[in-house]
């Protein structure tokens, strides 16, 4: 249906997803209802790990939601897992936006959400990672310029100063099955030999080759040198490592573009209170490029892709109403503005957030940096999770856990096991 027809549609839509948070989702729905008051949308949020069981069971029993999230890859919402349940949205997108519809989205996003020729979801926003966030206040207190961290030695020197002052340096949580610690290893791989990791994902290289081993050695070295704490494998990234950063107990954390949402003073204060701090002071956080760990002159680049998109269930009984909602949120300026103002997702429809009015802690300093971050993110040439099969992702998580928890385990054994448990991307 076209944008003109949409005004006459009414109905109710059920949306299940693991993101965004409930309060954010309800804000978007409220904004949607100002334009389309005749469509009720109910949003139910699930924990990441509850999402697959709930969704599978519901679809299997014929009582699934109308709208749900599909991401390029990963074991929570990857295309491969959910494509069978989603309807092809290309016809709807074309009716809404015209024949040139694909180019209206950020480069590559639609392809990343297409499975075997069917556009299973339309991008809501993007993500990029393989860089780090720092607490500028803590850096200033030690007299270090965050942008001066260019090599491993720079990093170590900074960390020594932080440790002496009782502050953790690089907080990492490797417990649990989320892939953040493995992502650090990936970042190091990119500084050892650019292109190796991407090739290995497709099976063109093996996971037990020299670059992987060298990256593992560097990661282990980070722990020995005290850059990463000894309890990395006992804590999870969320909430423990995240809490460390928000409570200003750590100076560096490896997160991606989604972390920008915590640069807003109000969110930051809430997070710090959630971390157990009473009456917290907001601090200035900024992204910086990851250091050239291997010292070969390769600064790890951003890797980015569509974070997730909205899909419509193939057996939904409310397809018309669901289509209006999905199209408004993903493919109109008003909808995307609502989404982008959360500064959680990289804008996928070319709409800039309303930077000045977001409540950043230090707008003059942070806005240009964030704008540059989003621009670099949109231009990323390598994707993040799209080509990671669930088996490969799990194998890497386990490998990094072994590396960081057992100093006596040989790296050759670890990468051999990782190779054996991985599956190449064939999509």
């Amino acid at each position, binding site marked *: 249906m076209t944008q003109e027809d949409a005004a006459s549609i009414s109905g109710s839509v059920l949306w299940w997803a693991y993101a965004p948070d409930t309060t954010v989702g309800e804000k978007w729905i409220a904004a949607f209802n100002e334009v389309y008051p005749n469509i009720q949308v109910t949003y139910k949020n699930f924990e990441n790990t509850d999402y697959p069981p709930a969704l599978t069971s519901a679809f299997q029993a014929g009582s699934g939601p109308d709208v749900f999230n599909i991401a390029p890859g990963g074991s929570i919402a990857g295309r491969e897992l959910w494509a069978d349940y989603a309807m092809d949205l290309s016809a709807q997108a074309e009716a809404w936006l015209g024949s040139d519809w694909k180019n209206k989205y950020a480069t590559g996003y639609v392809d990343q959400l297409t499975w075997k020729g069917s556009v299973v979801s339309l991008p809501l926003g993007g993500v990029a990672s393989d860089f780090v966030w720092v607490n500028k206040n803590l850096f200033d207190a030690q007299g270090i310029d965050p942008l001066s961290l260019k090599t491993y030695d720079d990093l170590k020197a900074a960390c020594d100063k932080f440790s002496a002052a009782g502050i953790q340096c690089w907080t990492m949580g490797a*417990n*649990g099955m989320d892939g953040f610690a493995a992502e650090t290893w990936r970042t190091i791989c990119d500084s050892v030999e650019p292109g190796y990791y991407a090739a290995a994902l497709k099976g063109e290289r093996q996971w037990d080759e020299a670059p992987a081993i060298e990256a593992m050695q560097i990661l282990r070295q980070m722990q020995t040198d005290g850059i990463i704490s000894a309890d990395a494998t*006992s804590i999870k990234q969320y909430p423990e490592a995240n809490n460390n950063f928000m409570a200003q107990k750590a100076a560096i954390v490896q997160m991606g573009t989604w972390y920008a949402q915590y640069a807003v003073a109000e969110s930051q204060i809430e997070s710090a209170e959630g971390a157990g701090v009473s009456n917290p002071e907001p601090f200035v956080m900024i992204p910086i490029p990851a250091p050239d760990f291997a010292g070969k002159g390769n600064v790890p680049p951003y890797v980015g892709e569509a974070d997730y998109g909205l899909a419509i269930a193939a057996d939904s009984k409310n397809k018309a109403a669901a289509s209006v909602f999905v199209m408004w949120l993903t493919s109109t300026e008003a909808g995307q503005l609502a989404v982008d103002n959360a500064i959680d997702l990289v804008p996928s429809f070319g709409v800039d957030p309303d930077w000045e009015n977001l409540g950043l802690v230090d707008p003059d300093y942070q806005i240009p940096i964030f704008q540059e971050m989003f621009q670099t993110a949109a231009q990323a040439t390598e994707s993040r999770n799209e080509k990671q099969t669930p088996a490969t992702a*799990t194998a890497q998580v386990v490998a990094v856990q072994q590396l960081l928890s057992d100093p006596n385990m040989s790296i050759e054994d670890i990468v051999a096991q990782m190779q054996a448990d991985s599956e190449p991307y064939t999509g």
Partner: protein
Amino acid sequence: MAITVKSPAASSAGSGRRSGGAAKRRYHGVPAGMTWVLPGFVMAVGVIYFCIGYTGYVSLLPWNWRPPKEEVVEGLGNFARAFSTPLFWECLKHTLIFFIAVYLVQTVMGIVFAAIMHSRVYCSVIFKILIFVPVVVAPAIMSPVHRRVFAVDGPLNWILAHLGFLHADPTGKNPAWNGWFQWVLDHIGLSSVSPNWIQPSTALWVVIGIQIWSSIGMAFILFFAAMGQIDPEVLEAARIDGAGNIRVLVSVIIPQLKPTIVSLAVLNAITALKLFDYPYLVTTGGPANASQFLGTYIYSEMFEKGGRFGYAASMSMLLLVLAIGVSIIMTVMSRERKPEEVKV
């Protein structure tokens, strides 16, 4: 209610009469029980066995089958895959260790606590409540708390530090054993144990510890109730014979607790086999599969590796067979020695 536990004396006259032609009469006299058992049976078996049947069917589908892909019955390949995967056997090993440790501590400490609470301890009500509250609170809630308790800078290490076992470093993140305790550990072959508890060498024991914490209360209640049913006259008789407290406990009380001890064995075996909550929520089966159990492994195959429902279903069926087998063995072993009803 006039009829009490004392009635054996009242029926003694009757039993004398019954010993003659009583056998036939008694057989006919015992009413049929099927109607009594049927509702519970239908509900439990009907609902659950439908699920078991469904799972059995899925276990014969390709190992990476996931609804709604088309179904192509393949056969027993998934079972072969399970047997040939080292991780499967790791899980079973963890399960066995878990079962032995938890059951032993639960039984011993359950009986000890029940015995203590039956004695004239001050404020026994408070103790009883405290012991049982861990059973009440849901694992989903307590898991982050437990991660905190066992964290390198958490309450457990705080207590150990104040008792002189270990000391922390300035950042608080690298505690180390004090020299004397490290010496002790080295000499009993446990030198790899470190105050960093959620590590491959000790993660399993963290899960075991948490499970003990959360289940002793239940064993306690069962033993407490069973002890309450013991005829005080028997206890009196033993005391008159001069038995001290320990003797009374071992020779009089514990034999009467036999049925409960057996039930607990069966329940712990089944719990150990299908264990999921704590290992998943606290350590996620790790780090690096150090605390992986069948329940968590099945879950990860279903939902973390992209939907290998066929393989997960086959392991569920193996779990079923194991659980029933173990339960039957345990109960048969104990039934042999079940004391005949006392006909005084």
